[in-house]
């Protein structure tokens, strides 16, 4: 600038004036901006403060899921059937680990970790959701666990957890009833309407069968939370025990089962296949619900080895099938009780006798009987289990009346006992045939007369499961009420299906007594004379044997009993109640392909019954101090006249 600009005084003043005005404006603008910023701050820090405060806490704290102890399952006397044992495990969380490879290397110096398992873990962790822990090892010994636990500071992301694992103290005795728990599968998660965090935890197990499945929600409990403070990359800065939420343990389930009876039942079956069901005939409580052979439910808790599962699935005795509920078999001669009741109700004279010559011609078919029984009336036909009598009687009564009677006793019916998996079986009648074959085979819609004699001895289409037969005997023994079986006694202290308002059993009491008396003679002089004796002083057991064909014998009468290939042998049945003079317990025993009911099933029923009777203090006192009284307290009412002794 070579020429000094001529700035005059007024201009100088003007420049200064402009500057002052403009400075004032600019200062005002800055002031306004500041006020706007403070407004924004007030909006964030006062109006929306709560929202951001929540977000901040969500940033700051994570909750680690704490698996609640699963509810115990107890028998009626408080004996643990399913319980929990301490389980030491190591888990790793993806969001807390930095170098998993290195961490696993360090871990493998402390606990056995194969290279293959390490690769598998790397893959598992990489696909697991961020905060969901992945189990590195479970079922560690205390030494291994503590060895890792003291070194966790050097193993970021690895947590040594002391959890609980399901344990079934009796191994196999209850496997079919209570089922088992197992690892959560992808399907399980899909089925859940909104799967909670718990389901992703490696320590959590889900009920897969039986009571464990049916009452899974109640048994689970509510997960707790371990509050931890985390930084922005998810590393745990510190734990906050004050913020921990304790898990709510699962509800305790009490069953009506009696562990002693159930265990004895499994014991008496040995290697044999079958089922045993026992009920308290005053309440309907199921005291025993066994299917044999069984399997060790404990194996499934940590994931059953494939070989173990394969062996179970392939064994012809079908250990995985619950035969007490899902196995249906022809009832055989045990069904004769129903035929007799139907006949009595129909007005058939119990003294009406038929002559048994071992075989009986009907149409162009010859029906057989085990023996040559001679003249048989209704009482003796039940005692000796004469088929010829019941062929004839069934023809007199007709299938529909027999079926109606059988249904009144619970056959062909599914009972709501709180666990799934029952098979209905079948009590056939003419209507059923019409309906069933209407489309598939119209020629077979008609009930053929030749089908009635088979039904009279519990064969043909007739199919029942052991639970139904036990209900049948219970109602027969009770005589008053149409009892309903009950398995779940209480859930979390709440009584389930209390035995009130049981409907009456619409059957003539005198008829029932007639059948009961005949059943009493079965064990004293009839088919189960040798095997149905309790040997418990004054206590007598009444029962009925059954030997059911497992397949139809081509070309007439084949070899009965325990001969031939196992899968072709007859099914053995025995149903019974005791004591005869004051009935308390009813039992049904099936021995699959066991041969004769009296030989295979009755001894088992007797042993199971003895346990129940000896556990009952009232009955035990009768056994130990036989009453010497002028008048016996519970003399059975006199049998109908004309009954042969």
């Amino acid at each position: 600038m070579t020429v000094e600009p001529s700035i005059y005084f007024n201009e100088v003043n003007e420049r200064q004036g402009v500057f002052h005005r403009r400075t004032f404006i600019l200062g005002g603008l800055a002031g306004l901006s500041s006020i706007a910023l403070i407004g924004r701050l007030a909006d964030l820090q006062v109006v929306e403060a709560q929202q951001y405060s929540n977000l901040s806490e969500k940033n700051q704290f994570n909750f680690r899921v704490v698996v609640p102890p699963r509810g115990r399952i107890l028998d009626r006397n408080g004996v643990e059937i399913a319980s929990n044992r301490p389980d030491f495990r190591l888990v790793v969380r993806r969001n807390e680990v930095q170098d998993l490879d290195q961490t696993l290397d360090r871990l493998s110096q402390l606990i056995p970790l194969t290279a293959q398992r390490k690769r598998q873990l790397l893959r598992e962790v990489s696909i697991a959701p961020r905060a969901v822990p992945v189990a590195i090892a479970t079922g560690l010994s205390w030494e291994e666990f503590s060895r890792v636990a003291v070194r966790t500071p050097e193993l970021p992301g690895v947590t040594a957890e002391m959890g609980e694992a399901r344990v079934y103290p009796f191994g196999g005795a209850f496997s079919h009833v209570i089922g088992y728990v197992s690892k959560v599968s992808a399907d399980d998660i899909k089925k859940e309407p909104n799967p909670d965090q718990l389901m992703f935890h490696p320590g959590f197990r889900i009920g897969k069968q039986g009571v464990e499945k049916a009452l899974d929600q109640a048994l689970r409990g509510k997960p707790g939370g371990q509050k931890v403070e985390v930084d922005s990359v998810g590393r745990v800065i510190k734990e906050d025990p004050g913020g921990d939420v304790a898990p709510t343990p699962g509800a305790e389930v009490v069953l009506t089962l009696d562990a002693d009876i159930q265990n004895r039942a499994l014991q008496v079956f040995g290697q044999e296949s079958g089922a045993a069901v026992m009920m308290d005939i005053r309440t309907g409580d199921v005291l025993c619900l066994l299917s044999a052979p069984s399997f060790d439910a404990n194996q499934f808790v940590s994931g059953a080895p494939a070989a173990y599962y394969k062996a179970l699935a392939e064994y012809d005795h079908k250990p995985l099938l619950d035969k007490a509920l899902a196995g249906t078999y022809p009832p055989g001669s045990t069904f004769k009780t129903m035929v007799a009741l139907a006949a009595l109700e129909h007005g058939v004279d119990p003294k009406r006798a038929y002559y048994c010559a071992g075989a009986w011609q009907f149409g162009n078919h010859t029906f057989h009987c085990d023996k040559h029984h001679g003249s048989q009336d209704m009482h003796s036909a039940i005692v000796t289990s004469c088929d010829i009598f019941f062929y004839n009687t069934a023809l007199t009564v007709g299938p529909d009346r027999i079926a109606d009677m059988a249904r009144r006793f619970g056959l062909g019916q599914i009972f709501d006992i709180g666990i799934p998996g029952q098979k209905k079986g079948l009590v056939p009648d003419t209507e059923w045939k019409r309906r069933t074959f209407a489309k598939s085979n119209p020629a077979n819609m008609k009930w053929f007369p030749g089908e009635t004699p088979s039904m009279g001895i519990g064969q043909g289409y007739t199919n029942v499961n052991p639970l139904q037969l036990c209900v049948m005997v219970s109602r027969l023994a009770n005589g008053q009420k149409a009892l309903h079986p009950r398995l779940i006694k209480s859930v979390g202290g709440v009584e389930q299906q209390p035995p009130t308002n049981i409907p009456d059993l619409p059957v003539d009491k005198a008829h029932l007594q007639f059948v009961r008396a005949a059943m009493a003679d079965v064990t004293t002089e009839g088919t189960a004379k040798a095997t149905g004796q309790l040997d418990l002083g004054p206590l007598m057991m009444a029962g009925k044997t059954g030997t059911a064909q497992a397949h139809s014998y081509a070309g007439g009468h084949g070899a009965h009993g325990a001969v031939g290939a196992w899968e072709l042998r007859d099914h053995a049945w025995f149903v019974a109640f005791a004591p005869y003079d004051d009935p308390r317990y009813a039992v049904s025993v099936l021995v699959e392909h066991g041969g004769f009911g009296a030989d295979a099933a009755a001894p088992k029923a007797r042993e199971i019954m003895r346990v129940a009777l000896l556990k009952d203090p009232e009955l035990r006192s009768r056994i130990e101090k036989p009453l010497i009284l002028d008048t016996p307290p519970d003399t059975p009412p006199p049998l109908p006249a004309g009954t042969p002794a």
Partner: protein
Amino acid sequence: MTASALTRPGQRERLTEKIAEIDWRLCALLLAVAGIGGMILYSAAGNSWGPWADKHMIRFGLCFALMLVLSFVDLRAWFALAYPIYAFALFLLLLVPVLGHTSLGAKRWIFGIQPSEVMKIGLVMALARFYHGISAREAQLSWKLLIPAALIGLPTLLVAKQPDLGTALLLVFTGAGVMFLAGLSWRLLAAGAIMACAAVPPFIMFVLKDYQRKRVLTFLHPEEDPSGTGYHILQSKIALGSGGLLGKGYGLGTQSQLNFLPEKHTDFVFSTFAEEFGLIGCVGLLALYAGVVAIALRVASVSHSHFGRLSAAGVTVTFALYVLINAAMVMGLAPVVGVPMPLMSYGGTVMVTVMVGFGLVQSVRVHRYLEITSGRGSLL
């Protein structure tokens, strides 16, 4: 200073007199703000002097001393050095692309300094020097205004090219501020503003680098990408909002302590402060900054020379822009452009720039009666 006209010649040149003329209220406010900064950096490091708080306070101490020394520099020297400093800064800016040192994807450094920072002071001085020499009428509307436009435009382009969008914007706004204070015609101002607004969309679409465009778009829709680019804004808002009215307490800011808040010690130090001290604390802190601006503007308006007025006001405008842009940025009202909070954010360069600026302001105050009548400063 009503008795100002009654001083003896040479009296004001005496050091004791000059020390008395320094604005100690301004010094106290600067000390307070920097002290709060040190305190927050101590908390952000998890109650530790290292690695930020100690260095911050030492730097401030040195810069404070530098400011006091600069206060005594005669205003005529500032005046005379205005163009040379500007030219020097411009020269360095031209050298940056050639010799610059790349850091974080941008070439901003040369010989250990950032030329753009030198330019912040240089531009203010050059503009003040220019307007000192023209009349009010010319400052309002004349062809001569192409010169300040060029003075602003050249360095802005060079800085934007580095790329350093924050500093470029700061240069433009500072320059525009000085032009406005000098008396730019309202019409021209309006036209410029409209043109600037019209230029923004094409500028965003074509001139900006990808990461810069992303920042701007994220600013407009932060919710769309909460873990990516929007993360900074979201976490900053969480820090601010969760602070509430009274704050979480000193040293208890979880967002900063647990590192959810990114850049908690630099660009987002205000959020760190807000989380721990709440709305009350923020209003107090902004009041301190407002106090600094008000005093500095007051210093500018009492200066007898136009150069003094404009240079002090220019520095103040820069300082106020830093504060406003940074605060708006952390509150989610402006894109994340990397403008720190002066005197609080950890970082030496800005501290030096700001304190040299306040050295100029103090010098204007100390020499407020000085008339600069000649383009050739009497010192030269």
